[in-house]
């Protein structure tokens, strides 16, 4: 057990170190897709339980439970698919930039797999920080101004997230619950999956990063914050229950608004990024429902895990699809399959996303009245807006785009994409069946079919209607970051005076023949004698005074 859990993080770590050396980097790159296999095997076959590694940090607590198994499983799967995608694009590791990318890729994998296993605050923070930092290297692969801007905004928000989480965990370690740790952890972890209004790094980073990196960012890096919520926020639960309605409202706002902003983007990857914010808004709302009362928590956490799983797999597949070579063998499948995935994402009837929404639906009556009514209106609305967004996405991709050159932007074979798509459609179903067979069957009932179908039809109709003229106006990617940057540019903090040390001391000292004296002192025998005398005098002086 203890060895197995360590292998999960040690294998990618060893490969990361191997990439640094010119002699071993080639085989390390070849092994790239297999680095996540120990995690995959652990998720499938590993025994549940936890281990304390007492020499590491303050006693690193790693473990595997039902929740961790699901999260670890889909995370490892997406990393594997992204690895095959990168390798099929012929990832050479000869240049410094490529090796830097692969190094960061592997370190991010260590962090990403680690957070799924960490049961304790410090350990979670360790892996989370590793993930955040290495994520920078996944996003920034060239020196274009817009890349550096995206990287800068990512780093700023990642740092804030780090510090808030650290403070939150310190409060928890000191045995304090209450609003402080709750707010710090909620937003600190929430930055990762784009909780409003701290979502602005997401579209920029996803738009810039190479497609496999975007797949990882959107698919699984985002879920690091999600599992943090599920693991650590309940420790502050009494406060959260009071905020349940606010959390639901925040989530629904993200779900609807982000989809609308995404619909007026031009870059398909940015559309997908906004879709991620929107989908994670639904996750946030579900989380708000789960914390509303202690009895709901165990009933809804599996639904949240299912939602995270299906979103991770589907979204990662979508991003890989955007970066796949359509001219290659079986490349003709890419566009139709993207359409199919879009259907799965928005929650078409009988898909896992629809099952989660039905699952949520079942508990609306147990919620506070405001929250119940809000969700009853907003849940179908999210399907409408998501359908609008994804229709525009599919429309934008109808013709193959020329892919830019760069790390991981070579022409990748469609096989990893198609493979991941198959699993993305299959696994959430199996998971839904094992977690909650009733909801699974409910999704095939006639009433539910219509319930999930009509919002989609409305969304598709809106997309058709708006196709003509909505294209004209745009919201720049990153939306509220634009005015913020303007503010930051114009509101530079006052600069402290720079010269603090020059003139003042001139008046302190009487003029002395220092230069000559220095020259004299530099002959060391004399200095030594004077020095010893000084010590003697000081010692005597001290003795006399005392």
């Amino acid at each position, binding site marked *: 057990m203890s060895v197995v859990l360590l292998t999960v993080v040690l294998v990618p770590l060893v490969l990361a170190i191997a990439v640094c050396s010119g002699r071993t980097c080639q085989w390390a790159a070849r092994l790239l897709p297999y680095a996540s296999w120990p995690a995959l095997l652990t998720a499938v076959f590993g025994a549940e339980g936890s281990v304390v590694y007492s*020499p590491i940090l303050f006693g690193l607590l790693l473990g595997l439970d039902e929740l961790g198994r699901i999260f670890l499983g889909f995370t490892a799967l997406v990393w594997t698919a992204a690895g095959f995608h990168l390798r099929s694009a012929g990832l050479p590791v000869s240049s410094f930039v490529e090796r830097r990318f692969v190094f960061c890729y592997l370190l991010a994998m260590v962090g990403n797999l680690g957070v799924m296993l960490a049961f304790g605050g410090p350990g979670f923070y360790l892996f989370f920080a590793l993930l955040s930092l290495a994520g920078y290297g996944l996003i920034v692969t060239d020196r274009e101004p817009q890349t550096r801007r995206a990287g800068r905004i990512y780093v700023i928000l990642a740092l804030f997230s780090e510090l808030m989480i650290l403070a939150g965990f310190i409060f928890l370690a000191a045995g304090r619950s209450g609003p402080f740790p709750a707010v710090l952890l909620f937003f600190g972890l929430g930055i990762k999956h784009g909780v409003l209004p701290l979502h602005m790094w997401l579209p920029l980073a996803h738009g810039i990063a190479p497609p496999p990196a975007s797949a990882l960012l959107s698919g699984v890096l985002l879920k690091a914050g999600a599992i943090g919520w599920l693991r650590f926020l309940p420790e502050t639960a009494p406060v959260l229950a009071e905020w349940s309605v606010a959390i639901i409202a925040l989530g629904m706002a993200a779900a609807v608004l982000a989809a609308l902003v995404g619909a007026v983007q031009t870059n398909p990857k940015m559309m997908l990024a906004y879709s991620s914010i929107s989908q994670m808004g639904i996750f946030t709302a579900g989380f708000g429902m789960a914390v509303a009362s202690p009895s709901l928590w165990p009933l809804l956490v599996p639904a949240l895990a299912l939602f995270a799983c299906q979103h991770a797999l589907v979204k990662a597949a979508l991003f890989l699809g955007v970066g796949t070579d359509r001219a290659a063998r079986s490349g003709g499948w890419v566009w139709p399959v993207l359409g199919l995935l879009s259907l799965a994402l928005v929650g078409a009837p009988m898909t896992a996303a629809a099952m989660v929404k039905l699952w949520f639906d079942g508990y609306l009556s147990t919620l506070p009245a405001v929250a119940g009514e809000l969700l009853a209106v907003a849940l179908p609305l999210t399907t409408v807006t998501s359908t609008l967004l994804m229709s525009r996405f599919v429309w934008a991709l109808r013709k193959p785009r020329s892919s830019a050159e760069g790390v991981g932007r070579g022409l990748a074979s469609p096989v990893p994409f198609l493979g991941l798509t198959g699993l993305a459609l299959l696994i959430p179903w199996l998971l839904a069946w094992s977690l909650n067979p009733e909801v699974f069957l409910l999704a095939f009932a006639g009433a539910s079919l219509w319930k999930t179908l009509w919002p989609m039809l409305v969304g598709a109709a809106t997309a058709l209607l708006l196709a003509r003229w909505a294209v004209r106006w745009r919201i720049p990617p990153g939306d509220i970051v634009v005015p913020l940057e303007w503010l930051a540019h114009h509101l530079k903090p006052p600069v402290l005076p720079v010269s603090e040390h020059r003139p003042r001391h001139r008046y302190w000292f009487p003029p002395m023949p220092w230069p000559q004296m220095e020259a004299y002192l*530099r002959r060391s025998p004399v200095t030594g004698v004077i020095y010893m005398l000084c010590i003697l005098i000081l010692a005597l002086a001290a003795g006399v005074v005392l």
Partner: protein
Amino acid sequence: MNGSALLPLLLLLSSLIPALLIFALREPQAVARNCINLTGAVVKLALVAGVLWGVYRGWRFEFAYELLPDVAFSLRIDALAMLFVTLSAVLWLLTTVYAIGYLAGTPNQRRFFGFFSLCVAATVGIALAGNLFTFFLFYELLTLSTYPLVVHRGNRASLQAGRIYLAYTVAGGAVLLVGIAWLYVLVGPVGFVEQGGALRGVSEELYPALRWIFVLLVAGFAVKAALVPLHIWLPMAMVAPAPVSALLHAVAVVKAGAFGIVRVIYDVYGIDLARTLDLGSGLLLVTVATIVYGSLRALQQDDLKRRLAYSTVSQLSYIVLGASILTPAAIVGALVHLVHQGVMKITLFFCAGIFAETLGVHKVSELNGIGRRMPWTMTAFTISGFGMMALPPTAGFISKWYLGLGAVQGGYDWVLFVLLLSGLLNAAYFLPAIYRGWFGRREGEWPHERYQQRLETKASLLVPPLVTAALTLFFGLFAGWVLSPLYWAELIAQLEMGR
């Protein structure tokens, strides 16, 4: 006097004797000089290892004789002393290796290495001092023996810096002496008492005077610990050669001040009396101001060494901050940061020295693409930079965790947020350097490139920062292990809290 009482003396002599031998050699006898130096450093390390084991077993060693009636010269080995001695012994060895490489072929090496060893002897004396008088003796010895190192280059800037340095430290020493003398008049000779402090059970009438004495003592130490506004000498002293900046400004001199404050609070006043007299809160404000101010100044420096110097100003205050909060976790944080800050900052100074020596790069804005030319050095720099930002799994994270925990447990929630702000500022001035190093691209030649060998620079320059960077990672990642500073700091904290 039995053999074990000689141990403290041996620890002291293992660097004092090399110093005297080096002064006796002639300038060209480089091989002999280096041999003596390294032998001393290795012998000291071996001694330290043995003593550590003994202290861990609960033994204490003391060496004392009376200079004058009631005025004893006393060297004692206790857990707190060993924390500082071990740090300086390990870093002395590494810095000696580095300095031999750094100064090869330059004049005045005899003077340099002689005083360098003397400095280390003084540092060990400070660590082992068993009473305030002995502490003061070595404290002043340190001041004087550092001066020739600061002015080593002998140019105008060095002389000016040396003058400022002396003015500050000698004045600080004088204030300290007044404080010590006053305390002596009130309560007689003051030794350091490991559990509970020397002043335990002192009558309440003396409380007002004790407060003032505390202010004097801390003001005396604050000069070396570079608390704002007494920090000005530190960034100026950056004109000294890199090994000096590395050892003295990361470890010896500045730590002597911080260590003095820790000794005074824990072993002279004791934690209970310090709480009763509420000594911490004033000091806390000063340290918080220093932390923020130092970081803000660091942000404005383009010169790498000056940026590091201001960062030292800021980071040192973490130690004093932890010491002034007086909760168990904060004490652990302060003590562990004493070691961690030393290891991390010395790495950064080593790296800055390598950049300057090998490529002629002195400024942050010139670091573009340096990670391609010198990946190992830049890796060491990055690890320690992350340590300064307190990212896990580096040593800095351990310190900050305990300091933050201590602050929250003591009810100082706002201090935690100051620590976070400082972390943010640290990131703001370390990340650009790291970004430039790894993600930037160099256009054209390096200003002054040397040592184009199989390694990226001289081996003697490269190995020390790699070792300290590895220690930074090791101390952080394996904090729970018996050999980690954290374990030792927890041991001391238990002793000081009297549990």
